């Protein structure tokens, strides 16, 4: 085969060029630390890298909402914590009033004043705002405080909806809460019914908050207990339900003739309900037993405060009425405390859910990072050995080129 001189030079040039290109590619790998600089160098590998990168990106974007959710949930937790500590102190104060017969009107006003402070701090807890000034207990309506006072009662002005944030695929966490659900609608009394004294009572009876003692017999109704003189000429009582009719004495017994005798401190039991009644009633005095209704913490507390602020002096009838209010308030606050504790544990669950999700995301991200590292990072040892190999090849080419060149020159010098 003849190799024309021009072709020989061209070929040498092409070989050198090719080697320079290979070395440049290795330099690129070394300087960027990546196996491939662009997709076309290895479309399959690039596809895998892209997929992993997308996964990581997706997880990362969830983790940012995870952090928001974490902060929000922590805010719920701290606000409910502060609410609960107020409620605890309120319950102590109620107990103090209940168990201390020697309190004067002034003592009670002082207690009412402290309760006033707790009312404010509870309101403060419900009106918690985030860093952007958005109320967290107003549902969607985050620009207005959840509860405002209007004519002595507390109105929920927020929204009843809950806004949720996605912290993982289809994992949503509440980030804006309905304050009505948390603070606005807690059943009064013992949670099932309330017991109230008729305002016109002239006797000194008062009652415990009572309880449902037999669920299967329980019938919800508006009951009225009236003290009557029974057939034996003693102080007796009858109970009539607005829709269930006469329940004490049970028909066919008639009232007032068959009304059972009143025994102070003993339990009155009807329709699955049991209430302990004490004190000295007058004939015609009445108790109203009604189904509980939802009431806001703030209304319950401000009702209690106004009762405590009303002087009773030494009037036994007024004292009985006050004591009835206090025992109802105590029962209501048990409900409130239960509700807030339940909510606190719900928030706790939410917080651990967020934490778990964040941890899971972080773990997944770490795993994917390892995978993508293996896929895309160039191995420096391999690079340098490839580089020295290429450089050796280049050197050999250059040397053979110059040797052949010399031969040609020598030949031409003949």
């Amino acid at each position, binding site marked *: 085969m003849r190799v024309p001189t021009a072709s020989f030079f061209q070929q040498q040039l092409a070989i050198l060029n090719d080697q320079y290109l290979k070395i440049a590619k290795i330099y690129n790998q070394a300087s960027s630390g990546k196996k491939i600089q662009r997709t076309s160098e290895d479309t399959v590998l690039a596809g895998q890298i892209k997929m992993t990168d*997308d996964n990581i990106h997706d997880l990362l974007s969830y983790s940012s909402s995870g952090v928001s959710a974490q902060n929000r949930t922590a805010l719920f937790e701290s606000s409910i914590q502060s609410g609960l500590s107020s409620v605890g102190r309120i319950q102590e104060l109620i107990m103090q009033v209940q168990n201390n017969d020697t309190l004067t009107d002034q003592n009670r006003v002082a207690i009412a004043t402290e309760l006033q402070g707790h009312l404010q701090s509870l309101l403060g807890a419900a009106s918690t705002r985030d860093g952007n000034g958005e109320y967290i207990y107003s549902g969607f309506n985050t620009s207005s405080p959840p509860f405002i006072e209007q004519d002595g009662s507390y109105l929920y002005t927020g929204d009843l909806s809950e806004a949720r944030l996605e912290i993982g695929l289809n994992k949503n966490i509440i980030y804006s809460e309905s304050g009505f659900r948390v603070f606005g609608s807690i059943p009064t009394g013992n949670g099932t019914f309330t017991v109230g004294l008729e305002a016109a009572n002239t006797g000194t009876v008062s009652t415990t908050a009572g309880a449902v003692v037999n669920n299967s017999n329980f019938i919800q109704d508006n009951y009225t207990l009236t003290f009557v003189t029974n057939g034996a000429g003693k102080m007796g009582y009858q109970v009539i339900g607005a829709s269930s009719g006469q329940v004490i004495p049970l028909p066919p017994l008639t009232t007032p003739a068959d009304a059972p005798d009143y025994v102070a401190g003993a339990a009155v039991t009807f329709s699955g309900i049991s209430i302990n009644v004490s004190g000295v009633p007058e004939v015609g005095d009445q108790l109203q037993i009604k189904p509980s209704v939802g009431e806001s913490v703030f209304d319950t507390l401000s009702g209690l405060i106004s009762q405590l602020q009303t002087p009773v002096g030494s009037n036994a009838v007024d004292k009985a009425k006050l004591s009835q209010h206090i025992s109802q308030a105590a029962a209501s606050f048990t409900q409130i405390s239960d509700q807030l504790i339940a909510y606190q544990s719900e928030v706790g669950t939410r917080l651990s859910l967020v934490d778990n999700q964040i941890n899971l995301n972080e773990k997944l991200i770490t795993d994917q990072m390892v995978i993508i590292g293996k896929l895309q990072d160039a191995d420096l040892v391999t690079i340098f050995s490839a580089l020295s190999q290429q450089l050796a090849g280049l050197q050999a080419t250059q040397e053979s080129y110059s040797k052949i060149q010399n031969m040609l020159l020598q030949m031409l010098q003949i």
Partner: protein
Amino acid sequence: MSDITSIGMHSLLAFQAALTVSSQNIANVNTPYYSRHEVDFAQAFGSGVEISNVRRLYDFHQSQNLQQKNSAFAKMDVYLQRISNFESLLDDSTNNISRYTNDSLDALRQLNGNVGSIDSRSVYLNKLTNLTHRFNDISNEIYRQKDNINKSLQSNVDSSNEILTEIASINHQVSSSQGEDQSALLDERERLVQNLAKYFDFTTRLDTQGVLNVYVGNGLQIVNGNDAASLTTIPDPENSANIQIMIKSGTHLTPINNFIQSGQMAGLIQFGQKGLDVASRSLDRLALVMAEVFNNQSKLGVDLNGDLGGNVFNDINSANLMARRTLANGNNAGSCDMTVNIDNARQLTTSDYRLRFDSTTHYVLTRINDNTVVGSGTISTLPQTISADGFSLNLASGGTFVAEDSFIISPTKNASSDMAMIITDAAKLALGLPVVAEANQQNTGKGISQVTSVDDTTNSAFSIAKQLNPPIKVEFLSPTSYRLVNAIDSSVLEGPLAYDPIDAAKNPVNIFPTPGGYNPGYKVTLTGDIKTGDTFNIAYNTNPRGDNRNGKLLADLYQKKLIENDTLTFTNSYDAVSHDISVKTTGAQAGYESSSSLLKQAEVTYNELSGVNLEQEAINLTRYQQAYQASAQILEAAKTMFDIIVNLARR
């Protein structure tokens, strides 16, 4: 005696000529397409040696082979260079549409945790604007590159024309200088042919006179002896953005785009069609789908001010855009105004369509990519609407058609260059839903109501600003039955309807029973134990400051497969385009390498015969020089002999 002198004379002259040939070879060692010459010596009877022939070492078949390889390499060279540049544009990891899409999703997810914040809203708006700009930038770059292709094709055509004229002129000189040394002419023509091969592919034939004729495709002659036809370009009648290459002979124009399979022109055309056109149609479709679904979702929401949401991006069916999606063939005899409405961007393909009339009233609509007929029929009256593949074509009244009229329909055309943000006020991002359904605060039951979807805000229920028309109260007549009441005038809209709390615990009950029931364009469900007298209020969401329900639905759009028969998400769709170009670049790289090595082989084979080897020439030079010196010695000897004889005679 005179014989010796004569022999010496002849051989001296012969070797002098041989030395000239070798010198000429050596001098042209680096001249491209110089064919070396070799001398043939022959014994001259009685007078020594003579040069019987100076051969030009040239093989026409090797030349044709080299010409083909030159074309193939030039095509791959230009194709690889263009497509790999294009790859860099699309496959830029920090600056591509997928990345901007993901960035905007990140911002939206963050925003959904803080929908009341104007700052967070602005961040999302900026991310969407960046995304829009990237669409514009890429499409501008595609237009620029298309323009550049056309300019390059034009300059290819100009250079080709020059070469064609020169070849014809050399043909003329060759035929008029028969019997003379034509080597220089032939070498020059060889250089021209090989250079022309870099522009496009053709075949050549040598006639007995040594005249070279040039043909394109299957026998279309562009150089005929002394005459050369010229190439010219016209705008493609089916796509004004492209140009078509024509052969012009006299006034007759013949399109040859389809014949050009190789050479730079083919590389440019292929990059335009397989690179730019394919990518730009996919990107345009992506822009259309994004604009459509974002706009639709936004219209179902409420903004920070409590107003119903509007378009996020510009309307994909504006009059201007609709009118620009069709192109009448320049040769049409009839005319008709047409607009293209995108009915459902999710059903769009990345193809253009051809509407062709085979009579004055009968049309055939063909999807060009796979050559499938997607519609045909008779048009008896105008206006008329033809629908296919997610778009509909509106033919305006007053149009006329003539058989063989054709129109190109490009539903996706210009979408990414025209994409623009309409919302500039961050408060107008519609992140809430316009409806809230709330249990009455006095309810004694535990029923929970929820708005499950808002489907149509053009429903009359939304005809009054910031109010439902009418707001609805759901009244429970018993724990198992309810009715729907107009909350303003207390008129009964529907009911009583049955409610099953046990069933509702599993599947929340849709309060507007479907089908056939009252349909206000949104859906509300109830679940839980509900007591007699409980009510639920369904009202307009006038304080949506903390409502992220529509924001989450917007975020869902990013994860949904909405493109290409619901198989691709937004980012999938972009990645597919980018990946396709990368795969084509890989293919082009392989094609480049193989065509380059084939070209090298062809050059080696060609030069093996025709190229100059300096060693060989040096040896020849030495050889001829020695022979020349020896020949001189012959003359010297003859002279000496002559002198001896003369001296003898003198004695």
